[in-house]
């Protein structure tokens, strides 16, 4: 069965600093991986997705993620964060027709 682990419930970071949000998955079949973002009082929005091909995936708002099969990871990175990046970030793995979500990481960007 597929599962997703986001070890960090909260990541505080100063504005313009780099950030990495960690995601590890387990799956016995081919994986499709996603990062979603939820801004305060809003629904979820797709940030980026890995279906196949290049292991480095670029998404919206300057975010990127790298699929690492040997380490079963799909960490999200941004070289320089802004205050507006403050949000909750969810990693998800596809399981047939469903998504299995991690518990989320709150990215708190401080001035």
């Amino acid at each position, binding site marked *: 069965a597929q599962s997703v682990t*986001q070890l960090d*419930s909260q990541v505080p970071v100063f504005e313009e600093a780099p950030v990495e949000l960690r995601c590890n998955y387990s799956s016995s079949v081919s994986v499709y991986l996603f990062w979603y973002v939820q801004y305060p009082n809003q629904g979820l*929005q*797709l940030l980026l997705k890995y*279906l196949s091909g290049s292991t480095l995936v670029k998404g919206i708002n300057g975010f990127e993620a790298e699929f690492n099969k040997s380490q079963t990871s799909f960490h999200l990175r941004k070289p320089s964060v802004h205050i507006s990046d403050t949000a909750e970030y*969810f990693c998800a793995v596809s399981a047939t027709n*469903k*998504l299995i979500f991690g*518990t989320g990481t709150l990215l708190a960007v401080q001035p």
Partner: protein
Amino acid sequence: DVKVTQSSRYLVKRTGEKVFLECVQDMDHENMFWYRQDPGLGLRLIYFSYDVKMKEKGDIPEGYSVSREKKERFSLILESASTNQTSMYLCASRSAGGPPDTQYFGPGTRLTVL
């Protein structure tokens, strides 16, 4: 752009009431989903529907039922609301077939059961 709308952003109900949460999508998607979101638990799937009148239980279906009479509309029903159903409820839809693709989410309904 895909649009998923939910009937209410905020809802307050009393214990024992029957509650209907409505979700409508405008992209002719076959699959629709209901999740609940709780702090520290992420999103958990309640029910999903892969086509009209078809439904399947998710991970936490107890205390909930669903209805899908038309392709664009998917309703979540709390037969007798309880305080432990106070939560954020999110609806999503996606197109079926081919490789897994994006789920499109509505803005959510924050339900408080008193």
